[in-house]
C-alpha cells in the first residue's frame, strides 16, 4: 500500500490523523475521502427529515426494504433446509409461506411506492439515477420472482415453466436462458438475481440518502396569482 517514502516513518496510532501528499494519492485514501464527502454520517443515518415527509405515502419505500429483508432471510432458511423440508414438514410449509407472502408484500409495497414517486416526478432535482435504479431493481425483482416460481419443485413450477418456455424462446433469450433447466433457474434465483436486487436496491437507498427525499411540487405562477387575488378573511394568530 505505502510507497518507499513511508519506510522508516513512525507508525500512526498515537499522533492523530496524518495525511501526507503520498497518502492522499492512494486509491484507498481517495475512496475514503470520496465516501466521507458523498455520505457524511449524519446524512447517511439522519435522525430528522423534512416536514413534508409526514405522509403515509413516504412509508412504502421502507416497507419494501423490510419485505426484501424478510424475503432474503426466509430464502436463506429454505436454502439451508432444502426442498424435502419445505414440501413435507409443517415448519417447512410455514417458512415457505413466509417466503411467498413476503414476496407478495414486497411487490405490493414496491408498486405503491412506484406510483407515489411517479406522481411526485421523483426524478426532479438531479435524482434521475435514483429513479433509474428503482426501475432497474423492479425489473430484476420480476425476474427473481419468476425464477422462484419455476424453482418450487412441484406441479405448479412444471406448469409455469412449460408455459413460459414458448414466450422466452420467442424472444431468442431461450438459447441462453432455458426455463426448463431447473438447475440453471435455481442458480439464477438463489445467487445471481438476489445479488443483483440487493446491490441495486442498496445503491437506490444510498442515492436517496445522497440527494434526499424529493420535495413536493411548488405552486405554479397561476396558482400563486390566484392565491394572491383571493381576499383573506382573517389573519391567522401569530
Amino acid at each position, binding site marked *: 500500500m505505502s510507497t518507499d517514502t513511508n519506510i522508516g516513518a513512525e507508525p500512526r496510532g498515537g499522533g492523530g490523523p496524518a495525511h501526507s501528499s503520498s497518502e492522499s494519492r492512494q486509491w484507498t485514501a481517495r475512496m475514503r475521502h470520496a465516501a466521507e464527502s458523498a455520505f457524511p454520517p449524519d446524512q447517511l443515518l439522519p435522525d430528522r427529515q423534512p*416536514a413534508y415527509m409526514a405522509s*403515509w405515502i413516504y412509508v412504502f419505500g421502507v416497507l419494501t426494504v423490510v419485505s426484501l429483508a424478510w424475503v432474503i432471510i426466509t430464502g436463506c432458511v429454505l436454502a439451508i433446509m432444502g426442498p424435502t423440508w419445505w414440501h413435507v414438514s409443517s415448519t417447512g410449509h410455514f417458512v415457505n409461506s413466509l417466503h411467498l407472502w413476503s414476496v407478495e408484500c414486497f411487490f405490493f409495497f414496491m*408498486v*405503491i411506492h412506484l406510483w407515489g414517486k411517479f406522481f411526485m416526478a421523483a426524478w426532479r432535482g438531479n435524482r434521475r439515477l435514483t429513479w433509474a435504479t428503482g426501475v432497474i431493481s423492479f425489473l430484476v425483482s420480476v425476474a427473481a420472482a419468476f425464477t422462484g416460481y419455476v424453482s418450487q419443485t412441484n406441479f405448479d413450477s412444471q406448469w409455469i415453466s412449460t408455459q413460459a418456455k414458448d414466450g422466452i424462446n420467442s424472444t431468442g433469450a431461450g438459447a441462453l436462458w432455458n426455463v426448463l433447466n431447473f438447475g440453471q433457474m435455481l442458480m439464477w434465483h438463489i445467487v445471481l438475481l438476489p445479488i443483483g436486487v440487493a446491490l441495486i436496491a442498496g445503491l437506490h437507498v444510498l442515492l436517496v440518502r445522497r440527494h434526499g427525499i424529493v420535495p413536493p411540487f411548488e405552486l405554479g405562477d397561476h396558482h400563486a396569482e390566484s392565491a394572491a387575488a383571493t381576499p383573506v378573511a382573517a389573519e391567522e394568530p401569530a
Partner: protein
Amino acid sequence: MVLGALLAALVNLGGTGKYFHWGFIQISAANLVVIILMVVVFVLAILLPFPKRKGDRQ
C-alpha cells in the same frame, strides 16, 4: 388453527381459479383483488393524515 380455518372459509382455494374477461383482457379474480387493494391503499396513503408527535414543527 381456528383463525386459519376462518380465513380459509372466506375463499375456496381448492377449486379452479375464477377469471374475468373483457374483450381481449383476461385477469384472474385473485390478481384483480390485489390490484384493487393496491389502489385503495394508495388512495388512503394520500388522504389519511399522518400522526404527529408533540413538539414536531410544521
